[in-house]
């Protein structure tokens, strides 16, 4: 039961991060590999606000979100100068670079030792110490985020994003500004990733740089693509599947200590199979091509 609650909490967190990424990948049509780095940005920011400045949960998370939005706005200007595979390459470079900072800036991030003792969520006088309480709180946040994403998806903004994705030139001739729209999607994706990271920090109370490396970015991308890019519900389905899938591995006899390796292989294979045989994902409207 406890483990189930843990999974549920994790699904809420990942759904938020993947939901933001879907706006960029599925709606704006830009494949990005930097999501894990923004996830980490939010995690470290919230942790530092809570630990060093002793801010309460709402402030720490709120400012972590703001930091993610600001960082994504700045880095987005750089990355969006590039098209196609160079955009992806630049996001990969940013991912690797930011992760290197997390790993090496020991004074601030604790480097490989990480930051511990991050407090659980506290809202006013209510402490969410128990697993069930945290799960409930995070699900409320996740639902709000998903509703917001749904609002965007069905609004003229969402339609304009998809138009830019399908034919940037044509959308320009209709008065849409592809750069501004893509930048907005990039910013939102980074902000929501940071929000997820902040929630993660307050849940697991200890974070280090290994959670924010490039395989995690590939993992988020797999969620979006599997669930169905371009469908606002896609990330939820994708998250649920990819969080629950490794549980099946428990019943499979594996060589000692190879668990993490097999998990990574599993995610990568799922991504490859989805790209090959069903690029629109399970719910998708938009087939990555």
């Amino acid at each position, binding site marked *: 039961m406890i483990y189930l609650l843990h999974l549920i909490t994790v699904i809420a967190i990942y759904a938020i991060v993947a939901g933001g990424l879907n706006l960029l990948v599925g709606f704006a049509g830009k494949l990005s590999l930097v999501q894990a780095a923004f996830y980490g940005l939010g995690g470290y920011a919230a942790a530092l606000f809570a630990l060093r400045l002793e801010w309460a949960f709402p402030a720490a998370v709120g400012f972590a979100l703001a930091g993610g939005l600001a960082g994504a706005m700045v880095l987005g200007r750089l990355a969006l100068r590039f098209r196609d595979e160079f955009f992806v390459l630049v996001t*990969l470079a940013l991912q690797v670079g930011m992760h290197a900072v997390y790993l090496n800036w020991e004074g601030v991030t604790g480097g490989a030792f990480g930051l511990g003792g991050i407090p659980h969520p506290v809202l006013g006088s209510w402490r969410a110490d128990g697993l069930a309480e945290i799960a409930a709180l995070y699900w409320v946040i996740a639902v709000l985020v998903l509703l917001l994403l749904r609002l965007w998806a069905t609004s003229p903004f969402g339609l304009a994003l998809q138009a830019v994705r399908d034919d940037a030139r044509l959308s320009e001739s209709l008065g849409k500004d592809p750069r501004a729209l893509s930048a907005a999607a990039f910013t939102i994706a980074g902000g929501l990733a940071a929000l997820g990271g902040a929630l993660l920090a307050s849940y697991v109370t200890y974070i280090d740089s290994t959670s924010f490396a490039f395989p995690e970015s590939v993992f988020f991308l797999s969620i979006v693509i599997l669930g169905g890019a371009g469908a606002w519900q896609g990330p939820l389905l994708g998250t649920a599947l990819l969080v629950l899938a490794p549980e099946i591995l428990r019943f499979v006899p594996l060589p000692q200590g190879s668990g993490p390796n097999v998990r990574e292989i599993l995610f990568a294979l799922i991504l490859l199979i989805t790209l090959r045989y069903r690029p629109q994902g399970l719910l998708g409207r938009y087939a990555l*091509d």
Partner: protein
Amino acid sequence: MAQIFANGLVTSAVYTILALGFGLIYFTTKNFHLAHGAVFASGAYLGWWLVVRAGLSLPIALVVAPLGAALVGLAIEWSIYRPLVNRRASPEVILIASLAAYIVVVNVIAMFAGNEVQLLRAGASTTWEVAGARITTIQVLQLASALSVSLGLAAVLKWTRVGHLWRAIGDSPELVSLTGWNVGLHRFGVFASGSALAGFAGVLVALDVGAEPHMGFAAVLAAVTACIVGGLGRYMAPILGAVLLGIAESVVVAVLASRWRSAVTLSLLILFLVVRPLGLLGRPLRGEER
């Protein structure tokens, strides 16, 4: 000072071989084959296994390991890229697929050979003193290999029909296939050759510092940077990028600390992409192609 330069040159040697292989594949097929890093690691581990576990001699390993790496590269092309290319998948999708392939291969290696560094020691290694810098036999081997690979590739591209075909395919695959050549077959050839180079580089590195499963990631990023700095579309330009990168790294490591190594690669990569995306020697496209 001379030591820094020598270290830089040695680093560039491996980067050169790796980058020439990456460039060969990228300029010909336009596929951003980041799994090249995994092929590199495969070569390293194969070499290690052949010498340390199977007891074969180093010269044999230097031949067989690249062949094995070529097979890994071919497998990736056949099972992953080819179906996507046939379906006209976009370059970004192929890049993502190559990353997924990298993850699979590297984790398989880790499952079989563990996560610790495995050293390939084949006999004693002497240190030489040249012009005030120390350099080991292995490093001499690396330099010599880089030189021969460069000359060999240049010769193939300039004087053989296959080399000409590769360049033509890089320019316009449709036209080449229309004139009757089997582009698919030559894609295999390009992947096999580029991967063999990566595998060869892998063995050289295993001999020098050892092999660990994630060695290919930073290495392939360095190869990509070398290609971009050197100049996109020019098969031999990665040499220039590799030398620059190697020396820059060496300087930074000497002045700051070795952990800033990757920062050099990334900074050069982003700098060139922003300021001079064609690289130092790249040719701008003709007006009609813009």
